């Protein structure tokens, strides 16, 4: 996968993370109830967290580092 594509995906993933952990989103799950014996908010936060890291690992594993000398094409 090209550098630029990876970079864009990571930006998108970051925005998803910001959305997941934004108080308004959390407010939706801010209910005092147990799901599978676990408080809903805890489940949501940890579930979202795991999902985010899994996606991150996926995106980064798809990225193939170009040979060292051509790794300069991206502006960061």
């Amino acid at each position, binding site marked *: 996968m090209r550098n630029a594509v*990876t*970079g864009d995906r*990571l*930006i998108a*993933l*970051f925005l998803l*993370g*910001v959305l997941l*952990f934004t*108080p308004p989103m*959390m407010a939706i799950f*801010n*209910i*005092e*109830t*147990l799901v*599978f*014996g*676990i*408080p*809903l*908010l*805890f489940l949501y*936060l*940890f579930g979202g*967290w*795991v999902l*985010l*890291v899994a996606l*991150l*690992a996926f995106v*980064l594993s798809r*990225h193939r*580092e170009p040979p060292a000398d051509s*790794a*300069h*094409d*991206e*502006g*960061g």
Partner: protein
Amino acid sequence: MLQPGVIVAAAFGYLCLLFAIAYWADKRADTGRGIVTSPYVYALSIAVYCTAWTFYGSVGRAAASGVDFLPIYLGPTLVAILWWHLMRKMLRISKSNRITSIADFVASRYGKSQLLGGLVTIIAVIVIMPYIALQLKGVSASFNVLLNYPEIVMPADADPGSIFGDTALYVAALMAAFAMLYGTRHIDATERHEGMVAAIAFESIVKLVAFLCVGLYVTFVMFDGFGDIFRQAAMRADLSKLFVMQGVADHGEWLTLTVLSMAAILFLPRQFQVSVVENIDERHLDKAAWLFPLYLIAINIFVLPIAIAGLLVFPPGTVDGDTFVLTLPMSERAGGLALLAFIGGLSAATGMVIVESIALSTMLCNDLIMPILLRIRWLGLTERGDLTRLVIAIRRGSIALVLLLGYLYFHFIGGSYALVSIGLLSFAAVAQFAPAIIGGMYWKGATRAGALAGLSAGFLMWVYTLLLPSFARSGWLPMGFLDNGPLGIELLKPYALLGLSGFDNLSHALFWCMVANVGLYIGVSMITRQSPTERIQATRFVEVFQQPDAGDRTRLWRGSTSFADLYALVVRFIGKRRADQSFGTYAARRGLNLARLTRADAELVHFTERLLAGAIGAASARVMVASAVKGENVGLDEVMKILDEASQVIEYSRQLEEKSRALEAASTELRAANIRLQEIDRLKDDFMTTVTHELRTPLTSIRSFSEILHDNANLAPEQRTEFLAIIIKESERLTRLINQVLDLARIEAGRFDWQMRRISVRELLLDALAATRQLFKDRDVVLDADLPAELPDVLADRDQLMQVFINLLSNAAKFSPAGSGKVGVAVALRGEGVEIRVSDNGPGIAREHQQVIFEKFRQVGDTLSGKPQGSGLGLAICRRIIEHFGGRIWVESEPGGGATFAVLVPYAEPDSRLAAAS
């Protein structure tokens, strides 16, 4: 069963293990088989982020307010996603500029400013102090709790003890020893510490395993899984409220904590140390970016169960939440697990303190103490010899100082605060670095003045809105300062500045700090100008990915210095062995011979500066190199030319110009070659035309006379004989012409079969005269040959030389006036050979034609004598032949005064002339 002796032995044994691991890793690294060259070790070392605060404090905070502890770990996760953009750039910049600390980074970006580097260092030391105190507090509190095993006694209620019984002091001393040993083992251009990294990675494993063990024990042994804990808690109103977040105010703090932790993971000195300075391979980021968040999830998964279990087990208000990790196993009399938990907390604390103190000592040494010492002239450091020892001593002193300050803070202030509150104080201050660093990486226009103003204002605002209130709460300042504002001015109340209220203290402080910091950073940058050095650095930072190899392009230094001076300078700071190594690599890479290097060019000076920057920081390195380079820095205009964005364009256009000049030269050559070719082509055409013309003339006459003979069978016999004679003569002429053309072609192509031998000139001339006698007789020309009796031999081809003589003689006969003609043959001995002269009294040859007649088909005199006589090839062939013999042929003539053709043929032997003379 858990005697104090056992606890101390376990703790001491654990620290010894750390020493052993660090020692082992250092040894391996020295032999080139480093174990830290793996992304897993890299990710684990970044997990130094999780300190005693995580280990004990998270549970305490969760017990107090539910999920509020999470933003501290969600923020770094979000940043890890952006590492690919942010950290890669930081890494690249730091490597190309040999940056060794966060202060170095800021100083380097804003024109290698010592002032800025010093400011960042001071801020960092001040704000990290509480953070280190927090670790000491964590260790000593957990130790004191464990000491009372199996009873559960809160540290606050325990016997404070004398200063000699003070655990924190011993812990601090041990940590200082470790940091001094493995953080300042050598002064290195890269400032890497393999042993330390290995120990830190090991500690990260220990604290994770310890925490997971406690979590598993609490969840599955003391309770019946997660569901059990939460169901029991759900039945109690005071606990079930922890399942949700309370109110809008919490949301503000949630965001604030997220932002603060995002800044912390990037800009805490220890994070910068492990993730940037200790990074070995940029590609490790790809794996570490998701391994590190995974670690964070793992170490947090049991925080809520432990917290709630603690609240369920202990009666409300009896046990501090910060100690649940320890007290829960103790309540079940699981001594071994409690000890493991203690070791886990110890490892979390030591990891943080060690890395932090090393990072701070590097900053203190490179960006504060060394620049000051170097500036003090009477110390004469710039002239002094070996400074390696001094640098190491300063580093060690700095480590001791940092830990001492941390201890004092803990001893006098730390007692009154919860772990998390102390940590957050530091986080808020570290966030002040964000605008100057992030801005510096992406905005070229940011100026030194802007960074200074923003940083100072942000820091002062932090002092006012967070630090001073913490003093007030500890009783160092009157509480009235908080409640009524300084001097009773309500608008200046630290927790409600300008009447801004309704937020938590942290969000309030962060808001004002950022307003001051970002506002001044941008505002002042707008109204101030960058110095040339700032412009260089700004470009190098912002465009680090566009530069093939940053650092080599900017030629900052002019002036002159010798290689020996630079070498001596480097040896003083990093030692002889490393200096030899570095310069050796430098020379090898450029194919230079160090032994023959005398003058240092700009590139070498720059290399030296970078080398020194690794050891003593960018700002100090600049001072040192400036002292060695005699001559001033480049003039403003010159720097602008190099550095402006236009510089690249200039560079490219210069290269283009060079290329087009080369092309122009090549095309000029080509054009010249083409002209020559055209000339040759034209000559060939001329030759063909002339030859065919020459062939046609005899052919035409042969044909016409043959036709006459053929058509008139009854011609008179004498007329027939006459015609046949003409045909024969013309045929001979044709044969001669063809032979000549062939000869010439063969000679020119170098395929002529020369029979070179000694020849007697006299005999040859006599033969030639005999052969042409009839011709002279026919034209009634007098031939007067004057040949000496003895003539030396020449080296030549007999037949060809004969042809030359016959050619010259018959020419002379032809051009002499019939009847009154006189032809003379003379021989003279010259230095180089025998000169044969054939002169006639014909019309002569005009001066401008004297060269031309030796060329092919060039006949002169046709205007005088009408039809040319001969093919026009004779003289051309003569010249080729004579030149082949190594002689010369030329003509001397005055128009109307006859012509003399002279031939010079070299002797057969060099000494022939002497022999002839005798």
